[in-house]
């Protein structure tokens, strides 16, 4: 389930990034690459597990859904920290004054 949710997040953020491109003031490129990196890695993990062990390709249950949500929250948190540290709008600099 977390693979599906991360893929969806990657597709949505890439679409938003493309709509705003070439401007990337809010670092949506970073967020989409974070999601794509995880999507690719989990895809490989799922394929290899399916080939070696068999069973269901997607794990669909409440635990997997909660993990998917947590993963998206963590990615958004990382992106937001990077955004606040770089402060592209200069908001934090203005607050300091």
């Amino acid at each position: 389930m977390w693979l599906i949710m991360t893929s969806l997040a990657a597709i949505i953020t890439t679409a938003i990034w493309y709509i705003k491109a070439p401007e990337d003031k809010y670092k949506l490129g970073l967020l989409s690459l974070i999601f794509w990196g995880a999507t690719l890695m989990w895809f490989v993990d799922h394929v290899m597990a399916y080939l070696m062990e068999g069973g269901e390709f997607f794990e669909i249950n409440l635990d997997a859904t909660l993990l998917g949500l947590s993963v998206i929250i963590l990615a958004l948190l990382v992106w937001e920290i990077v955004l606040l540290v770089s402060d592209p709008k200069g908001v934090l600099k203005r607050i300091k004054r």
Partner: protein
Amino acid sequence: MACFLVPMGEAIVTSVVQKVVENREKKVGEERTKKTGFSWSRRLSWLNKLLWGGTILLALEHIWHGEVVPWPPFLTAMNNPADVAPMLHEMATVGVAMAITVTVVWAIMVMIAELKAKATPEAKGSPVSGGA
């Protein structure tokens, strides 16, 4: 078990390489490095973001499943000697496959971006891209 450690290792190496390339590009100057509109440090930053992003999110998944803990030896598989060999096998198969896949996708991404940049009239006509 610990498959994400392989892409993490690659991410550490490529981050160092990116820093070295960035410093070299500053010394050489931007004109030489921006022949096609993309400097090597920028290309490497895409790979780093893919690798670090994947590593961070996969680390959370491993913590969620109890495969990684915040106390030594950090990997639960290390507690039982019988689990060490399967862990290393997983790193050698799944971990390496993950790192290769991400790198191949990045290489394709760079190739497409380069071709697109070369095809645009701006890149053809600009003095930095057209000069010998």
